[in-house]
């Protein structure tokens, strides 16, 4: 039988429940593999010894009723964890230890999860390749010097490399789905308002959502069930009836109507992606669902809209990192000088670029032309989806316009980097749920993903579609453990 770390969450849980594995064994297995995988640079902070303590405690008094009984889990370093350094991939928070826990991670610990460590990510989740992290690049286990995607790049790499059975990321414009696509894993961005933002270092408040990253769709449903909750501490959290996503998971999608938006056939999209999409359509048809051509006419405006709204919010959200209260401070002659030095030295280039863009688009005289216009376009993009959902139950698109690229390949060209998010960004702007599942390999053997976009609060439908497609696709990641 394969080693513990290769198993899915669902399999590990079953084995723990049947007492075949102890939590300590499982935890040690992932720690051991993590120790051997430092070259990937997936971790910012390891919590190994305390994880083993927790696992032993679990084994002394096991509770098999929990959904994550004694399961070690490493999480993106954007989630604040009580007593554990939380950096958001930034120098400015390099020494920051929160005295509080994010609601999403709290939900995981409450269901028996054990913190394995904090995973690398783009600085303040701003990036598509994990290259903006203060803690260095993360290598995609698919191939050396290949980016793992971003911003949840440490998460996707750790997951694909079997350093953690499942993980969580955050997705503001594609930061869960794109790295999932680049690493041959499953990533779901829930409906805005499903997962509490409390205790997650904010990037763009109206877009940020936490979500599960897993090896398969079943695991994704289990983890979503754990992390999705109504939270009074987040005013944008929504109190809707949440499904038991994993127990309601079904591969029966007969009669479901799946939309194919013509606007997602973008110029210059590689033939491989086009072929993958076609293959996906065939699989869906095989499952008995109906394919319907639809139009999302404002798709073209999504990326520019996103790159106004997200930096605008970020410029304000990141104002609190001023060296006064916590985090990095650079001494200055006076208050203004201290601010300037702290923020110049504490933030990286990409973060500074977005703060400047955001500050610009909110400035008086430019506000109407940029921010206000972008908000209006955002409404139109949302309306596109609303109209489409009068006809279809879900929408199928590629997850990304390309497979994983080389480290450094796009780091000097922010616009080409931003284009990575072209298929994922509209989903955030409209607040919808979206899941990326691995659907094939390109000519280099790098994974490619397909995205299924759902109606608001209808995570169950996209999970079901993904689940039934997963069976047909029967994807296998091609990972050689080159780094060990």
């Amino acid at each position, binding site marked *: 039988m394969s080693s513990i770390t290769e198993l899915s969450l669902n399999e590990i849980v079953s084995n723990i429940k049947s007492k075949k594995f102890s939590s300590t064994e499982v935890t040690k297995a992932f720690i051991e593999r993590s120790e051997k995988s430092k070259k990937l640079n997936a971790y910012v902070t390891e919590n190994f010894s305390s994880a083993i303590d927790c696992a032993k405690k679990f084994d002394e008094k096991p509770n098999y009723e929990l959904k994550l009984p004694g399961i070690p889990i490493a999480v993106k370093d954007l989630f604040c964890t009580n007593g554990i350094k*939380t950096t958001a991939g930034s120098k400015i928070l390099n020494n920051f230890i929160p005295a509080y826990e994010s609601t999403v991670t709290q939900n995981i610990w409450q269901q028996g999860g054990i913190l394995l460590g904090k995973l690398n990510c783009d600085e303040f989740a701003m990036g598509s390749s994990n290259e903006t992290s203060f803690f260095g690049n993360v290598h995609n286990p698919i191939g050396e010097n290949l980016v793992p995607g971003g911003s949840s790049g440490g998460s996707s790499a750790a997951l694909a490399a079997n350093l953690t059975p499942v993980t969580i990321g955050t997705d503001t414009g594609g930061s869960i789905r794109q790295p999932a696509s680049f690493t041959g894993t499953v990533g779901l961005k829930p409906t805005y308002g499903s997962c509490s933002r409390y205790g*997650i270092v904010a990037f763009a408040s109206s877009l940020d959502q936490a979500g599960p990253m897993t090896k398969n769709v079943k695991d994704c449903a289990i983890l979503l069930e754990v992390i999705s909750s109504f939270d009074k501490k987040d005013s*944008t959290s929504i109190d809707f009836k949440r499904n038991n996503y994993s127990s309601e998971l079904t591969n029966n999608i007969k009669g479901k109507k799946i939309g194919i938006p013509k606007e997602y056939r973008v110029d210059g999209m590689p033939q491989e992606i086009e072929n993958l999409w076609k293959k996906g359509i065939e699989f869906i048809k095989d499952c008995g669902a109906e394919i319907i051509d639809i139009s999302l006419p404002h798709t073209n405006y999504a990326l520019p809209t996103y790159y106004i709204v997200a930096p605008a919010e970020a410029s*304000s959200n*990141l*104002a609190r990192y001023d060296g006064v*209260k916590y985090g990095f401070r650079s001494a200055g002659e006076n208050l203004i000088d201290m601010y300037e030095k702290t923020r110049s030295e504490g933030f990286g280039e990409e973060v500074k670029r977005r703060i400047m863009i955001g500050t610009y688009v909110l*400035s*008086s005289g430019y506000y109407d032309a940029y921010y206000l216009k972008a908000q209006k376009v955002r409404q139109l993009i949302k309306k596109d989806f609303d109209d489409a959902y009068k006809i279809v139950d879900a929408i199928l698109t590629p997850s990304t316009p390309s497979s994983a690229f080389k480290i450094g390949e796009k780091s000097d060209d922010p616009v080409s980097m931003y284009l990575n998010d072209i298929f994922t960004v509209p989903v955030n702007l409209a607040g919808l749920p979206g899941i990326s599942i691995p659907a094939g390999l390109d000519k280099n053997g790098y994974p490619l993903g397909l995205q299924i976009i759902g109606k608001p609060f209808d995570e169950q439908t996209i999970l079901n579609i993904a689940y039934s497609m997963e069976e047909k696709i029967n994807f296998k990641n091609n990972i050689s453990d080159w780094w060990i």
Partner: protein
Amino acid sequence: MDLMTEMKDFLIERENTSYEVIIGLEVHAQVTSNSKLFSSSSTKFGAEPNTQVSLVDAAFPGMLPVINEYCIKQAIKTGIGLNAKINKKSVFDRKNYFYADLPQGYQISQYKYPIVGEGKVILDMPNGQKEVGIERLHLEQDAGKSIHDIDPNNTLVDLNRSGVALMEIVSKPDLRSPDEVNVYIKKLRSIMRYLGTCDGNMQEGSLRADVNVSVRKVGATEFGTRCEIKNVNSIKFMQMAIIHEANRQIDLIENGKSIDQETRLFDTKKNETRSMRSKEDAHDYRYFPDPDLLPLEVSDKFIDNIRSEIPELPDEKKKRFIEKFKLTPYEATILVSDIETSKYFEEVIKEADVKLSTNWITGELFAVLNDKNLDISQSPISAKNLSKLINLIKDGTISGKIAKTVFEEMIDGDKDPQKIIDTKGLKQQSDPKAIEELINKVIKNNAEKVTEYKSGKDKLFGFFVGQAMKESKGKGNPQLINKILKEKLNG
């Protein structure tokens, strides 16, 4: 004083020209609430620095604001008290700027869509009533406090105040004199104290104002360029700042110079305003709707529930006092100006004569409170004992004059007036026989004066009253003494 001069408008006279002063106020009133606008920290004044600070107030990463519903109710209540339109939908915006005592790097405020729209306040001026328009009322967070004078090398920051709810009440530019500003602030404070929405304590900073001042030649219809004097924390300073600023602007005009629109500070020590920043240097606050908070929507039912909790406000109370108790508008204005005064008054008149009560409260009692610098809520004499005293006057047990002596005694320990009278034997002598006896004595002892009186020196009557009163040790019933003396002398 000639009444006409008193009623004259407030104008600043220069050679050949009279100037009118145009004033608008942005009053910052701290909402009475146990916890802050977006967090559950305490708002209690005077706590040790940085002991009332939540993770939200200190803007820790990932912390989110959650609206305190009570503060929303308080703002709506105040809006109703200002006869203003309540906006069922309002939006919290971020006002972005960097400062050490602003942990988030932005203040959450309401910019385009305030919770309360246009309203009005009626001022009782000596020459009649004046209506002042309210432009809007919006909710916002207070900042922390920077302390520059404790450590010689560092500025210290106290975040206890950070996140406390403020109502910014913006008036229309309807005020025309320092006196009107005085009455306006007091009226606002009175309304909010009636409503329990702001304690109006200016020493503790619960009420402060930005004062907008411009001047124009009498008869001009356009407003002049205005300057904003920031953060003035007493009525006296507001008045001083207005007079200084108006004169400064007039000097500029008289010298052919133009006024720059700018923000100024009032230096209380030097009694002058100083430029803080010009329009060009004005902050670009980059307002935008706070994405952490959904637009605030309140239902008609929510508003109606609040409306049903609104107590009788000063204007209505004044009307009732005039109609029901036949008070003069002047008396009624004084008695309703402060909710505690009106409560005291209504308590006293439950059992005592209205006219006498009014006189005693606005006369003797106010004098004592003024003298001792006390609020009526701290009055050394309870309403119950004051009403007893008034009843003792009314039923003739003591004279008004004796009552003053008793009143002085009552101040020390809120003593029962009856007991004072009994102990000190101050009861009024109202037995006609006893009075007649002592008058007989006075007439006998002053035979010469009696002759003079009878020969036409009428003015001596007062002398006899005085003597008789003296003979009674002040306790003689004055009406009786008058009556019997007249009978004896004229008979």
